[in-house]
């Protein structure tokens, strides 16, 4: 079902003589979001202000939500969105309000 859904919409195959498969757009969007998520993960680890680290983690989770959608898995996406975008930043903000906001050396 996965490759069939992407191949029935390969309208770009009429461009020019050679056939450009419909998965090209798929891989392009996946590549852009994967790169952004890698950058966001690196920034979340090496950040001293812990509130900004929570925000970077929420950005990385948003990019992962796009990746799960592109792999055609709506049930995993429906569970991943409340946990990673809503509850994990909420619990982490309660945590940094009770301990410390600036990470020391």
């Amino acid at each position, binding site marked *: 079902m996965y490759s069939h859904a992407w191949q029935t919409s390969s*309208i770009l195959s009429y461009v020019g003589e050679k056939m450009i498969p419909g998965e090209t757009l798929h891989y392009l969007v996946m590549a852009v979001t994967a790169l952004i998520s890698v950058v966001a993960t690196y920034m979340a680890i090496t950040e001293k202000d812990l509130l*900004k680290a929570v925000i970077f983690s929420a950005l990385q989770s*948003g990019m992962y939500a796009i990746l799960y959608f592109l792999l055609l898995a709506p049930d995993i996406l429906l569970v991943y969105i409340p946990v990673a975008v809503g509850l994990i930043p909420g619990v982490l903000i309660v945590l940094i309000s009770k301990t410390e906001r600036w990470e020391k050396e």
Partner: protein
Amino acid sequence: MLEFVIIGGIIAYTIGIALLSVIAVKGPTIGDQVLAIDTITYFTLVIFSLLAILLKQSLLTVTLIPLALWVYALDVYVSKYLISGDLGA
């Protein structure tokens, strides 16, 4: 004809997400970053709905509503922490 409009829309919204994520990573204050993530999530929502029509799967449209609701909850958490210092737990 219809597929060109949908694919053009997907490319335009992806350009918007890529430009906005520069502010989300670099932005001078915490408010800029949360605002950029808010807008990135709404653009993601439109990309999901356009892709659900392009791939002819009707079950992919149930994932739109939790995205809109939980990003509003993230805004409320950050605002409550900035005003009163704790989140009431």
